[in-house]
Each structure stands twice: as structure tokens, then as C-alpha cells.
């Protein structure tokens, strides 16, 4: 799901707008600056988060992809940062994920399942095992392995993580600085 942050609705950013009416060109520059702050934040997050399954092959670099998917737009109300990347909103706000097209979610249990679906493995090489004592089910294989490859779950709960985005204070101070630089240059030119 796309995350859409309308900065003008942050209290501090509102103060910025109220302090001095922002011209259309300034608004676009501020929007680009806000997108840039967000991209840098995502890239830092990507480099500071280790590979969840280091033996599972190439990392997906999810947060770096989120940085690539980050853009800006303006409207009459102000400006927005758009992150057109599936799952960012879920990471930020948390939520319950349930299977839609299958009976269960398949969650990688081993490195070799990282970034893969059960369909990436030969159909007859996997089988369902139910661990009654633990109340769990798993896809086990590929044959002859008896270790769980994917856990089969009826739902997964993602906890909210406000650190997905920079705080409004980070945005505010960066944007105030940007606005002051734009205006001081305009004054010098005049």
C-alpha cells in the first residue's frame, strides 16, 4: 500500500506555512526537499538493518526500494511525499495480515526460503507437517529435508513502527532551513 504523508498537516509544518506564505515555486522545492529527506531516511534504514536471513541469497533491500519509490507532489493545500511501495504503510501503522488467495500465509522458516514462495519449489518435494504439541503447521522439505521450510500461519500481526518515517521535527527543521536558503538567495539576487 502506498504511504502518503501530507506535510502541511503536521503542526510544525503548518506553522511554517502560516509564518510566511509560500510561493508555488518554493512549494515545489520544499516538496522535493521533503522527498529527499525521506529517501535518505529509507536508505539509512536499509543499510542499518541486517539481512534477516543472510544465507538466503541476495537481499531484497526493501527500504532501498522504498527510497526509489519515493516522490513528491503539490496541490492547493500544500505538498506531499508519496511512497509507492507495497507494505510501507503496514510497517508504519502495523496491522493484521491474513491470507486472501490461499488457506495460510507461508512465512520463510529457513534461509533457502528467503524471498521465495512454496511454488518456487517442486510441488511433490514439499509436504505439510502439523506439530500438534506446539500448535503449528509447516511446509517441510524439499525432500529429504525434514526441517520446516515455511511456517503456515492463519494471520501475522505487524507491530506499528513510527520510526519508518523521520519525525515531523526532522522534516520541519530541514524544510525551514531550505526555505531560509531559498529566500536569502532571492534577496541576494534582488
Amino acid at each position, binding site marked *: 500500500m*502506498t504511504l502518503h504523508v501530507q506535510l502541511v498537516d503536521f503542526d510544525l509544518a503548518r506553522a511554517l506555512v502560516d509564518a510566511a506564505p509560500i510561493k508555488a515555486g518554493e512549494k515545489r522545492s520544499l516538496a*522535493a526537499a521533503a522527498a529527499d529527506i525521506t529517501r535518505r531516511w529509507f*536508505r539509512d534504514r536499509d543499510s542499518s538493518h541486517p539481512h534477516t536471513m543472510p544465507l538466503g541469497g541476495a537481499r531484497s533491500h526493501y527500504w532501498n526500494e522504498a527510497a526509489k*519509490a*519515493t516522490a513528491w507532489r503539490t496541490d492547493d493545500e500544500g505538498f506531499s511525499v508519496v511512497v*509507492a511501495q*507495497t507494505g510501507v504503510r503496514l510497517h508504519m501503522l502495523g496491522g493484521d495480515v491474513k491470507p486472501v*488467495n490461499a488457506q495460510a500465509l507461508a512465512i520463510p522458516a529457513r534461509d533457502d526460503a528467503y524471498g521465495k514462495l512454496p511454488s518456487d519449489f517442486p510441488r511433490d518435494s514439499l509436504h505439510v507437517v502439523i506439530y500438534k504439541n506446539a500448535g503449528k503447521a509447516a511446509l517441510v522439505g524439499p525432500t529429504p529435508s525434514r526441517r520446516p521450510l515455511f511456517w503456515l500461519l492463519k494471520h501475522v500481526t505487524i507491530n506499528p513502527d513510527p520510526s519508518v518515517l523521520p519525525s515531523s521535527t526532522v522534516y520541519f527543521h530541514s524544510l525551514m532551513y531550505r526555505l531560509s536558503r531559498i529566500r536569502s538567495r532571492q534577496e541576494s539576487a534582488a
Partner: protein
Amino acid sequence: MLFSSPVPFDDAVRSREVRSLLPTSLSSADLQKLPAEIRERATFSARVPYVGHLSKLDRIIGMIVDPSAAQPGQYMNESLARKLLRESLADEGYEPSEDDAGTIKDLSSVSRIHLQVQMGVDFARGYGRYAQGMDPDVLNEFPAQRLLPSIAEHPRTTEFWDERWAEAGLPDTGDDLVALKTDPGWFRLSIFGLPYPPFDFGSERWLEDVDRDEAEDLGLISPEDRLQAQCRPFADGMTANLPIPSLDLIEAILNVMPGATFEDGVLTQISRLLS
């Protein structure tokens, strides 16, 4: 404020909308001979003559670039893309040769599908970022950009990129690789002849904005300079995506390469580029 309704990255989506399918039996090296302006308007993959397969690839890339229309259970990702593309190859009766199986030449391999999907998505996002950076006011405030370090699993060496940077005629700014956004060297840095990433097959070197103060400190621009924004040729004449090789695209190829041959809509041969 977080909005409950998803919003797309419009400029990235727009770069997908102008593309038409180009089934071809040509190799990657041959396709590189097509002008960048034509490649920007086509969805193709080396030695993929199957329209159905390309169409599916095109939809998959579109769904990743613009997830705003997807409902729970419809979100696209690379593993699902792999499943769908392998199904379409099976429908076409495709089987890799014994030598090619599992390699980048095998259309059903993990590495080939990753490359096809990732490059398609990256070109769209790369263009989107480029287009946004060319807004005249944004360009004035952020006139330059930095080539970021690679995050590829097996990156090319720093020396490789330093050499390529110099060969492209981009400015020497010390350890940092920074140049004006309008520097024609960006076109030369890219093996695809495009001013935005990806700059090479599998390249994971992206860009970040450099503001006016830093660009002036680096001597790239003086305080009184105002850069002229650029736009890609297709941005002026957006046309709808077409499900088959469009006559427009065929005509554009024949205009620059009159000897190009299409067999049942599949590009099978090209000749030298008209000067």
C-alpha cells in the same frame, strides 16, 4: 497525516504508459543499437518473441510501480512475478536448452526474471525521479546529483565506475561523484544512453539530490547561473500503451533503421543506424 487511499508515483507511471510491446528474437547487444528514444517507448527483453509473455511482464512491472490499485491478495512482488512468468512460459511451450538452463539466458531462471522485473521497475522510477528533478524551481534549488555507492550483491569495482565517470566527461569532484543534473555526461555514463538510472545491467547505483550551496562549493555552478530544464522526447507526445507492437513503434524503428525486419510482429533483424 497518513492517507488511507494509496497514491501513485505519477511520473514513474507515465513512463510506463508510453511503452508498447516489442517482441524480438534479437540479442541484448543488438537491442542496444536501437536509439535510446525508441527503447524508452518499448517493453522488450532480449530473445523474447512471445507477445503474451511480454504483456504479462509489462503488467507485472506496472503493478509494482503503481501498487495503488491493488487490493489485499493482489500485491505484486518478485516471487509472485516468478510464478506468473513461469506459467506464461509454460503456456508458450518454452523450455531452455540444456546449456542455458538456470543461467541468465534461461527465461524462467531466477536471475533472468529478477533482471527483467528489477530493470523495468528501476527504469520507471529512475525516469520519475529525473522528471521531478527537472522542474525549473527544483532544478534551481537542487541543480546537481550524486552517484551513490552500489548496494548490489556483487558490485562492480569503484575503479570501474571512476573510470567510466571520467570517460563520460563528468567533472572531477574528488572522491564524491557529483555533477549537474543537466550535464550531458549522464547520458554517456549509462550504457543505455539515458540520463537516469539504472546505468548498467544489474546496476544498483542510484542518485541523490545535491543542493545549490554544495554545487556552488564544488564549483559546478555559480550563484547567478540558472540551468535550463530538460525533458525526454517522449514526454511531449504521450500515447497510450498498446497490447501489441504498435505501428507507431514499428514506424519509429524503420525510420532510423530501414533495414529492420519484422516477422509476424517480431523484430528479428536490425541494420546500421542512419546518421
